[in-house]
């Protein structure tokens, strides 16, 4: 066997082993992340709802865990569900009801629970504002045209490049786009402060 064939076989063997190990590692990490996300979602629910949904959601998640992308989508959907359920529960708890005197009474109701983490609430707000800034930017026809032209030019350049240069270009485009969104966000924030 020539040296080249030996090296090629060793590389193929290494790639096969590494692929198996890395594949399992990545799958394990994805599963752990999904489980953690669902646990956090359940923990974010009011106690009464936690008891109601924890077992059901864990059972549904277990059924979809063999397909990590479906499980991840399910976990994301649960986050939205949890927010809505908590919101509806809070609204019904804080609803003003008529007391025995006929006057509005808040007996039996509780205040809406605040966000558990102030920094998380702030971060969620900022992400929402950046997203809105991006949406507002792209909703104007001129900017939309600019974005389309920029995307087409980027795609053309990316097509002409290869290897490392391609990766650097894509990273630069992504960073540039994020910087643009943050700039629009900062501009909007500054405008709001002035008002």
């Amino acid at each position, binding site marked *: 066997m020539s040296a080249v064939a030996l090296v090629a076989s060793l590389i193929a063997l290494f790639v096969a082993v590494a692929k198996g190990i890395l594949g399992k590692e990545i799958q394990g990490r994805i599963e752990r992340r999904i489980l953690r996300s669902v646990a956090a979602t359940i923990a974010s629910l009011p106690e009464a709802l936690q008891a109601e949904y924890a077992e059901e959601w864990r*059972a549904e998640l277990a059924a979809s865990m063999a397909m990590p992308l479906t499980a991840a989508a*399910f976990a994301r*959907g649960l986050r939205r*569900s949890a927010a809505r359920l908590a919101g509806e529960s809070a609204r019904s708890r804080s609803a003003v009801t008529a007391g025995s005197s006929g006057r509005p009474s808040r007996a039996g109701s509780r205040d809406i629970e605040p966000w558990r983490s102030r920094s998380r609430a702030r971060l969620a707000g900022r992400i929402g504002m950046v997203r809105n800034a991006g949406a507002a930017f792209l909703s104007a026809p001129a900017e939309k045209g600019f974005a389309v032209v920029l995307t087409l030019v980027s795609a053309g350049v990316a097509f002409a490049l290869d290897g490392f240069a391609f990766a650097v270009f894509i990273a630069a485009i992504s960073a540039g786009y994020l910087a643009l969104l943050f700039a629009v966000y900062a501009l909007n924030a500054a405008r709001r402060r002035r008002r």
Partner: protein
Amino acid sequence: MTAPRMTTQTLSVLSTMLGEPEADWYGLDLSKRSGLKPGTIYPILDRLLKAGWLERRWEQIDPVAEGRPRRRLYRLTGVGAPAARRALDDHLISLGQPVPSPGATRRPGLA
């Protein structure tokens, strides 16, 4: 009990369930069959439960023997099934579409 708020998603869930009104459904299957994003269905089920249109129970299985945890199953109630049919018919009328005859099998999904 008041009637639940009717959204397109709620109608889609009801339409799917009316495809097999006697069947028991679990959340993930229901969201797949009704075309909703997985995991987003629970507020809708919660509203329908509170309105008395659905009932739910735990699946009767031995989790150890089956190798999976038990699921929660949802089913249309005696009140819910005709009310859901009425709601869907009202929706079709509002869209100017023909209402299927009472014996006709409903196709899951609204389209």
